[in-house]
């Protein structure tokens, strides 16, 4: 059993927490997420042009790159995290260009060496996934695909087909950090997706509060929280870990007691 499948095989919904690598003291912030009860860590690779992200994560990308974060730094953060937390699944999320710059094989093997379990690439749809996905699979890393409200039943099989670890359902047609989708629409879409796959479905985009997380936890296998955590890093700097631990505990509590 992989770390990812273990995280999703519990009798409750998994809490997936996102932070941008290199924005603040990432090691301390990630530890705080784990202490607060995060089941899966999603580590954002900073990119100059985060087209699918709203203002909060855009700014985190800019802060991180402004502080000089390189791909080597992101991989080092992952490696050190793996050293401190041998059992917590770690997923890299980012955009295609930094992932393919030195070749997809290079990236897949470097991520593997860093103890990464899965990779989410925002701007490589199934239609263009003939290099990165295979390289990741070859290296034993789960390529995690995204489904959205616009993914109709005709496309869904193609999206689900290459996804491993879990499927990320983007609850709103929009960018990160915006308003949450109606729970009815989330529920309907998650059951639609679950009819075409056995892999776990995690729901993200627009999830900010424990109440929202709890509500989604009743209908999905995972809940992803990003912008709300990233905003705490922006606001509290060196004091972010305490705030992150607090919010993560509340989220975790809500998710654990949801069903």
């Amino acid at each position, binding site marked *: 059993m992989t770390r990812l499948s273990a995280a999703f095989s519990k009798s409750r919904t998994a809490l997936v927490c996102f932070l941008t690598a290199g924005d603040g003291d990432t090691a301390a912030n990630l530890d705080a997420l784990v202490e607060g009860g995060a089941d899966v860590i999603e580590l954002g690779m900073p990119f100059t*042009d985060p087209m699918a992200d709203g203002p909060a994560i855009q700014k985190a990308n800019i802060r991180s790159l402004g502080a000089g974060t390189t*791909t080597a730094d992101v991989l080092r953060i992952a490696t050190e995290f793996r050293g401190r937390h041998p059992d917590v699944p770690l997923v890299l999320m980012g955009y*295609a*260009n930094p992932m*393919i710059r030195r070749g997809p094989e290079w990236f897949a093997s470097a991520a593997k060496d860093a103890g990464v379990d899965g990779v989410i690439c925002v*701007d490589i749809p199934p239609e263009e996934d003939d290099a990165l996905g295979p390289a990741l699979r070859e290296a034993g890393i789960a390529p995690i695909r*995204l489904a959205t409200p616009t993914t109709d039943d005709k496309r869904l099989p193609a999206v689900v087909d290459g996804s491993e670890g879990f499927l990320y359902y983007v609850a709103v*047609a929009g960018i990160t950090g915006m308003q949450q989708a109606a729970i009815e629409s989330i529920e309907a879409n998650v059951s639609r997706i679950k009819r075409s796959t056995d892999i776990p479905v995690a729901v993200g985009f627009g999830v900010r509060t424990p109440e929202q997380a709890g509500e989604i936890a009743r209908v999905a296998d995972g809940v992803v929280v990003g912008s709300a955590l990233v905003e705490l890093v922006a606001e509290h700097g060196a004091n972010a870990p305490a705030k992150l631990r607090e919010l993560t505990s509340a989220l975790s509590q809500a998710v654990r007691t949801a069903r």
Partner: protein
Amino acid sequence: MTESKPNTFRNQPDDRGHFGDYGGRYVAETLMPLVLDLEREYRAAQADPAFQAQFDDLLEHYVGRPSPLYFAERLTEALGGAQVWFKRDELNHTGAHKINNCIGQILLAMRMGKTRIIAETGAGQHGVATATVCARFGLPCVIYMGAEDVRRQSPNVFRMKLLGAEVVPVTSGRGTLKDAMNEGLRDWVANVHDTFYIIGTAAGPHPYPELVRDFQSVIGKEARAQMQDRIGRLPDLLVAAIGGGSNALGLFHPFLDDPDVKMLGVEAAGYGLDGDQHAASLLGGFPGVLHGNKTYLLQDEDGQITEGHSISAGLDYPGIGPEHAWLKDMGRVEYTAVTDDEALDAFQLLCRTEGIIPALEPSHAIAAVAKRAKEMPKDSVILANLCGRGDKDIFTVAERLGVEM
């Protein structure tokens, strides 16, 4: 990469939108169903004579096509070499080639039942052209423009507002065209149900590079016929400036299978190709993925996109349409670059020899023409795309020349 020459250069892209290794549809899943839809609708429009007829009619009576083909006699004399001819797309309604594409795309948008238009703009020419067609067809319009470009192209900002568009200054990044395009894509992702994104150059996810090229190809089709008509033969060399590459492809594409016609694309060398203050993606970049397509990009060793520089806002983009990336690798088109200073000299040269104030973008092409013409015999013919007029640029030029207005 294929080693052998294909027997036609005009059959790209393939059915997945690939030009060799380049192009494609590198977009977030939210947009995928949409770009597939757009492609279906474009194929239907291509097969519909009524669509073509409406496009042609608007180009003739609204844009003012065909644009003239003009022999630049005094410039030719001043350069002392090849004859220089211009395709006068700066005489189009709104002052640049951009409107050709906007007419085509807004007709597509209406076919698809979309009720809201968005666009990105650099120099403001594409923004003005988009605002123009939106006013013409009564559709609301939001234009994303880098904050730095809002500053250096203020006359165009006012034009867009007069035409009823909302202009949104984009402050992320360095506030230029790339950042405006990011913001356009973010808007589109959030408003897929009713919004059509009119992309302003031959880049972005398939089918944009193809359909923008097709709409702009009116330039080359006219020029080909006009050349035959005027001098009974085709030109020896075509020259065009390259930002994203739409005016260049528009001129080049109808000539790609004429083996005797050479082609030169001119990128912006800014302060020089040796530093990083230029916008020459083909000459100074590497293949990568941005804004929905694989193409040459200005980027660092980690794949972060670097911000170039050009005096011309319309050329200040770190990418390039994927078809140019392919044409470069195939060796069919030659690419060169021209600095800010060379473009400024060419700008003034054209003003004084021909009584035409060109935009800074085609001033780059004119600078390259000036160099090449001198090396070519007097009976040879260069045809350059005069793709925009310079009214929008007079403030920038005055500033660079140290003139108080």
